[in-house]
């Protein structure tokens, strides 16, 4: 009588066709009649049945968002067609600067050779055009500024509460608040990015990450966990940035207020 090997029986256990066997029926029949193989199979099956699937630690509904927050700044540059390299922003800026220099040299050359300054022309070149913003667009921007400024005020309050929370105290109210703010923050960040307000989007992004971390902290966090959160908030100067940005947006809400150009450098 031909006996089956342990390997054949492993394949049979996993419902894979044993090697050299024309049909699973053959092995079933053999196990019915061969006590030796049946005993080996029983031992094998008992061992494998005892190995239960380990339960992975639970991950909440926001887990995907957490993963995204962790990897988004690590994503590599996508591979682009070779010709697109010529249209990179830094190269375009360089080309623009060269063009301005050439134009300036041309104007200066004319001035020196003529011995007089064609004042109106120079003025026309040197004076930047005043931005003409349509009233409707202006009003829409002010609404966005107001909303984001309010959002930043609320966020600053949550961050302040967390910074001052004592270990072991229930922070579930702050967490619920932070959870609401996460969703809003995401929308504002997208709006800001679409509107070209990159410095605002950067601060909102940092804020979103901290809020997500607060949401996923145990509601009665121990001192070590709270310290960890506080250290991250401190390291990013987040509370400071949120307050400064909120103030700047409030100032910009005023009609005719100029848009600050270097918000990132001021807040970081």
């Amino acid at each position, binding site marked *: 009588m031909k006996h089956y090997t342990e390997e054949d029986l492993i394949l049979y256990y996993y419902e894979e066709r044993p090697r050299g066997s024309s049909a699973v029926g053959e092995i079933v029949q053999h196990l019915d009649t061969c006590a030796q193989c049946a005993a080996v199979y029983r031992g094998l099956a008992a061992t494998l049945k005892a190995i239960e699937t*380990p339960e992975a630690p639970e991950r909440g509904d926001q887990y995907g968002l957490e993963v995204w927050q962790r990897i988004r700044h690590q994503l590599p540059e996508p591979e682009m067609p070779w010709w697109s390299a010529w249209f990179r922003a830094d190269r375009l800026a360089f080309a623009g600067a060269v063009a301005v220099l050439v134009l300036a040299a041309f104007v200066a050359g004319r001035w020196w050779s003529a011995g007089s300054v064609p004042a109106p022309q120079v003025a026309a070149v040197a004076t930047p055009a005043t931005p003409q913003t349509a009233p409707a667009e202006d009003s829409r921007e002010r609404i966005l500024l107001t909303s984001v400024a309010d959002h930043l005020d609320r966020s600053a309050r949550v961050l302040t509460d967390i910074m001052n929370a004592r270990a072991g105290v229930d922070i579930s109210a702050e967490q619920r608040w932070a959870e609401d703010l996460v969703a809003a923050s995401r929308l504002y960040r997208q709006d800001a990015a679409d509107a070209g307000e990159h410095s605002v989007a950067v601060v909102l992004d940092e804020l979103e990450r901290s809020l997500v971390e607060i949401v996923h902290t145990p509601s009665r966090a121990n001192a070590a966990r709270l310290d960890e959160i506080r250290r991250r908030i401190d390291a990013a100067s987040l509370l400071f940035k949120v307050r400064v940005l909120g103030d700047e947006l409030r100032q910009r809400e005023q009609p005719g207020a100029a848009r600050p150009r270097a918000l990132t450098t001021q807040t970081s």
Partner: protein
Amino acid sequence: MDATEVTAVLARARQGDGEAFRALVEQHSRRAFQLAYRITGNEQDAEDVVQESFIRAYRQLNRFEARAHFGTWLHRIVANCSVDLIRSRRARFDHASTDDLPVNNQPEASDPNPERMAASAQIERKVAAAMSALSPLERAAFTLRHYEGRSIAEIGKTLGLGTSATKHSVFRAVRKLRAALEPLRGES
């Protein structure tokens, strides 16, 4: 997200739209973590694997065939990232105490059948210890076969192994696990 939406999202992501990729990350993260945890047997390692897998997937988006299923493709990347990570941290695994390994359903004082639960926990500890002694490929192949219910052909495709090599990885893993658990069978 249906197939059409996934195709549109992938097209945008391939053009460098990171935000489009976010939808895929949010959809597949939990499943990726589960697989990574089962293969690595360690929560922090599983987190690292999930992150590395998505970064690798994003980098390789141009190689993804639109007709394939993104989840299946990602599953393959996660399995291979897990193998890579176990290889790179082999030394740590070799010295890990079994107390650090995942144990499920720890018996609690209020359990109606504490003896049975204690025996179950003992088996899990033995399994965890034996799993940590497997080679990275044995561990991944066994996980995919035993826990994930994948066929030998699928496992081979996932891990880039031939059928014979895949089978032998599973055989070796089962043999080592049997050897580790055999003393417990004698006790019960």
